[in-house]
């Protein structure tokens, strides 16, 4: 459709997709994908010990953790991110108290790329933790014990027993986190200020302030194609009956 018009009666044109390349919208896409990738990787590393403990070590505490983490999901993402803004900003919960107690503060921690990644890690933590714990609970204790008895080191057990056997959980968690983080917008807007503009933000702008629906649709289509492909290919590989624990 020609730019800045919206009717299904117009002839299709590819101009909006050219705009994607010409106007540097691909940079926003790259930022989104890159930050989603890094936050997924960080989430894997951060969640693994806790998920492992929930599945294998803790007894009553895993229930408390589960309830605690699920309850936090019911608070709107906006409010939680806003809470981080109040915590990290100059004169916020951390800086303000440090300044009063020790006499010297620091500049606010907000409005840069690392804090956006931090926001993504914070918001999508439950989406990694639970699939991972579910995956780890599928590792038979006998397999680990046998490996140890045969003289495997801790590292060998991790790489050769635990990671492969927990693979379904790792797959589900990583896919979920990557896909959701790639389309996230509130983190970069609230925590990141204007440090980088992510692709979902560009789409939103095109639809609201820009009033350029065809451009917005083209941008959204690029995102949908990428995320849709990843999601469909990923989901194809799950065996849901196995993951959700079918008894029969």
């Amino acid at each position: 459709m020609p730019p800045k018009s919206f009717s299904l009666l117009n002839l299709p044109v590819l101009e909006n997709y050219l705009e994607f390349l010409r106007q540097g919208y691909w940079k926003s896409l790259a930022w989104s994908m890159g930050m989603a990738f890094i936050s997924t990787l960080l989430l894997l590393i951060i969640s693994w010990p806790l998920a492992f403990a929930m599945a294998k070590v803790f007894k009553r505490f895993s229930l408390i953790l589960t309830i605690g983490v699920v309850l936090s999901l019911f608070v709107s993402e906006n409010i939680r991110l806003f809470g981080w803004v109040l915590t990290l900003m100059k004169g916020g919960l951390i800086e303000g108290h440090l300044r009063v107690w020790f006499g010297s503060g620091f500049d606010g921690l907000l409005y840069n790329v690392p804090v956006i990644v931090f926001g993504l890690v914070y918001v999508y933590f439950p989406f990694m933790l639970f699939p991972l714990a579910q995956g780890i609970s599928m590792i038979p204790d006998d397999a680990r014990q046998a490996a140890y008895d045969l003289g495997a080191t801790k590292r060998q057990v991790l790489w050769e027993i635990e990671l492969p056997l927990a693979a379904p959980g790792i797959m589900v968690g990583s896919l979920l986190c990557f896909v959701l983080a790639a389309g996230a917008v509130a983190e970069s807007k609230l925590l990141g200020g204007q440090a980088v503009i992510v692709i979902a933000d560009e789409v939103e702008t095109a639809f609201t302030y820009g009033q350029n629906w065809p451009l917005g649709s083209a941008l959204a289509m690029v995102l949908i194609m990428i995320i849709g492909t990843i999601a469909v290919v990923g989901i194809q590989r799950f065996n849901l009956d196995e993951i959700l624990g079918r008894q029969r």
Partner: protein
Amino acid sequence: MGSSQLSRWGLFCYGVLALFLLYLPLLAVGFASVSKARYLSFPIRAYDFKWYGESLASDSVRELLFVSLKVAGIVTVISMVVGFFGALAFARYHWRFRSLFQKVILLPIFFPQTVLGLALLIWFNALGVIPSWHTAVVAHLVWISPIATLVIAIRAYSFDPALEDAARDLGCTTFQILREVTIPLLWPGVVSAGLFAFLLSWGNFPLSLFTTGADSTLPEWLYAKMVSGYSPLIPAVGILTVVASAVTILLAWLGWSAYRWIPEKTGN
């Protein structure tokens, strides 16, 4: 087993730290909501609850509350019904396209909500539907009813189909089986799915953003205020919505305990 004890202790501390970090931002919002100053700066010097009073007295907040409640209530009822039958197809029956069905159900969850909301907006526009809170209900359902289905499906996996067969052999009609066997057995799943549906719809922002049209929900209003600068009403209204969720959870929990307690008493 000294080292094992030590690592267990370390993991416990890690878990506590994770919980602390999850709720730290809410703590900050809570403190901010009772700060007297119009321009927030920590540490807080004077405490005051006036912002709560002001936000409760505001007509626009009440209007937002009403819209959010309407949407969440309708979404809850529909997704409980859809989720119930969806879960039976998901977990209970073996049929030809079951595996495809399971994957199609999962797909909306594996999709960024902002993009989902946008795609729905384009659809509504192409169909000639003017967005309002009605379309937001549809949008929420696209995302929430699969979650409700999954929650009930987990319950349905532990369901023994022999019970239904036995009821049929004893002469029950299909409707009787549904009422006497299937629904009571899946009821805990249905209730928790309803709770999930209400809370997720109540707190949802990305789907509402594109699909509510001229209407607005509480999370949308909060976001608009946050992006445009600080206002002491943001933390107050934010905490109020969190309190509303907490009260809902508490009531559900109390109701559930009472429900489990009564049959025990009458049974003996």
